[in-house]
């Protein structure tokens, strides 16, 4: 099996989507001549032309708003917002325009656009360049939210997101960009809304997405040494998320831990827990424990940031707590 980097998987998905559909365009700051701040669109301008890979001024609100207008007029724009922290500037376009257009216009239109943006810490980028804000978007009816954990799912989910008729917020963990993994020679498109079981286990279900999937896997290895078999689900899509898969796993293990890099309080994990505390209540044999970031901005110092980010050790402790 060939190896592929996460960033290259994004690049390939963009290229294949643009080759497959001439209405796909890419728009954002430094996406064209520079090939993207992180290099996600490298080489695409040469291949598809500057008309389809559009460098913009530093005007996030207008970029996202223009994507809505372009999507209503026949294009499939893929917007890049350089850091998820800057999505603070596109909330109106995404929430009041993109998310609502279909519903609010009585089903007359779809808004096939994707907003790609990297979240996450680990780079010492500090409080305004590291946030995980996906819970905001997941709370907004009309938006879909995706967050892949590895190269193959990054490719497959991005293809699905671009093909999707509705607006999708596509979140990439920037600490994963350099990650390399084996992938099938033919990369499949992966439907939105489906979780993947990455590890089977009977004792506890650990639900994660994005970079936290790897934290969960590391915890599972450690737990296996203690005789605890954890089942790991990679959520992949956050909105919609695969409620049935989580429920099935819970029905098997009767214990639940949810892990993500975002701040724990009012984060994505809260919804998963809340659903399971309702529809999965009868299956529960212990408290549902979340592992997320503490309630503070992402700090700059390496030492603080390491203490801040969810660790395998904290996941192990969470599992022990629900098994206790």
């Amino acid at each position, binding site marked *: 099996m060939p190896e592929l980097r996460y960033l290259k998987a994004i690049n390939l998905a963009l290229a294949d989507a643009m080759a497959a559909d001439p209405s796909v365009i890419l728009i954002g700051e430094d996406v064209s001549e520079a090939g993207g701040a992180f290099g996600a669109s490298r080489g695409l301008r040469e291949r598809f032309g500057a*008309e389809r890979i559009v460098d913009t001024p530093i*005007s996030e609100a207008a970029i996202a708003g223009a994507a809505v207008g372009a999507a209503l*007029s026949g294009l499939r724009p893929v917007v890049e917002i350089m850091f998820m922290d800057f999505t603070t500037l596109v909330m*109106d376009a995404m929430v*009041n325009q993109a998310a609502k257009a279909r519903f609010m216009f009585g089903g*007359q239109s779809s808004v096939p656009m994707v907003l790609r943006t990297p979240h996450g810490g680990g780079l010492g980028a500090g409080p305004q360049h590291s946030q995980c804000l996906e819970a905001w978007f997941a709370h907004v009816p009309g938006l879909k939210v995706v967050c892949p954990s590895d190269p193959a799912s990054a490719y497959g989910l991005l293809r699905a997101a671009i093909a999707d008729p509705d607006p999708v917020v596509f979140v990439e963990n920037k600490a994963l960009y350099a990650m390399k993994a084996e992938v099938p020679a033919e990369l499949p498109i992966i439907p939105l809304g489906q979780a993947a079981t990455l590890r089977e286990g009977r004792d506890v279900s650990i639900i994660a997405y994005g970079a936290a999937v790897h934290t969960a896997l590391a915890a599972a290895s450690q737990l296996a040494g203690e005789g605890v078999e954890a089942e790991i689900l990679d959520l992949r899509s956050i909105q*919609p998320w695969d409620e049935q898969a989580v429920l099935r796993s819970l029905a098997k293990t009767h214990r639940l831990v949810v892990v993500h890099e975002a701040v724990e309080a009012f984060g994505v994990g809260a919804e998963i827990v809340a659903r399971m505390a309702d529809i999965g209540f009868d299956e529960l044999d212990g408290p549902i424990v979340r592992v997320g970031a503490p309630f503070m901005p992402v700090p700059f110092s390496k030492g603080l940031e390491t203490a801040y980010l969810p660790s395998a050790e904290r996941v192990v402790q969470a599992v022990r707590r629900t098994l206790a």
Partner: protein
Amino acid sequence: MTEPLDPSAAPAGHNADHGLLALYRSLVLIRCSEERLSAMFADGEVPGFIHLSIGQEAVSVGVMAALTAQDTIASTHRGHGHAIAKGLSLDGFFAELLARDTGLCRGRGGSMHVADMSVGMLGANGIVGAGLSIALGSALAHRTQKSGAVAVAFFGDGALAEGLVHECLNMAALWRLPMLFVCENNGWGEFLPTSKQLSFALKDLAAAYRIPHVLVDGNDVAAVAEAAARIVPEVRADGPRIIECMTTRVRGHFEGDAQKYRDADDLAALSERDPLRITATQLVRAGIAEDALASITEEVKARIHAAVEAARAAPGPGFEAALADVYTAAPAGMEAR
């Protein structure tokens, strides 16, 4: 100016006769529609927030006379005139304002969100300034698709304080997009004169962005139509332009606004600048019989009456159908939901 009145004619707009009488008919259609809405609002029959464009109709009618069906527009909270002039379904319009399932938005949007994609009307908008970026993107799509179409953004003078407007001016100019900016300068943003909100004139801003700007009497439909007819082809061929229309907000910010904050004399003087009166005077001077004008009004009222009655008879929207339209059905094989 002397063509016979065709009662079945569509409102001025796509391929319609641009003669002044046709424009007048369109003015009357907007006016009578909004007066009807005003009365129904007072009766409690029209819910929500209603911002009428009475006194500003000539902007919509004059600009739309220069557009084709392929051209797109993005509108504002004060969007009835734009929508009607662009030729959206009148039945669908009234049904929407009465929150019926037969409404253009199936009763989910109301006055601030009327839209008709089939005529390139990309929606009224409850967010001041937001329509500009939607038109910007639509213009980008037109250019990418080499469709030859233009996108038009309507916005009020108060909107000029929103940063998004400037981002759009810059990008439209930078990329020379086929985008027309139409400012409806009525001197007010809600309850405060825009002279207390803006430190600049749009003309000077336009000069900075090097976007050609013309100022027209927005209450004289002939003047607006003439400017639009001249400028829209420039937009198609050469890139962005701004038309600033000086106009008058007659009914206050929204229905129910008694405008106590306005000078009584100023308010009284508005009738002299009434777009219908101005155009009627021109028509009569040009030899049209007053009766002909009156009969236009009668026909239009009959048309509106029919639309209102149809709306009243229509069912309310269904909750399950609404829920099903939050997302588009996933494409075959994808099962995204």
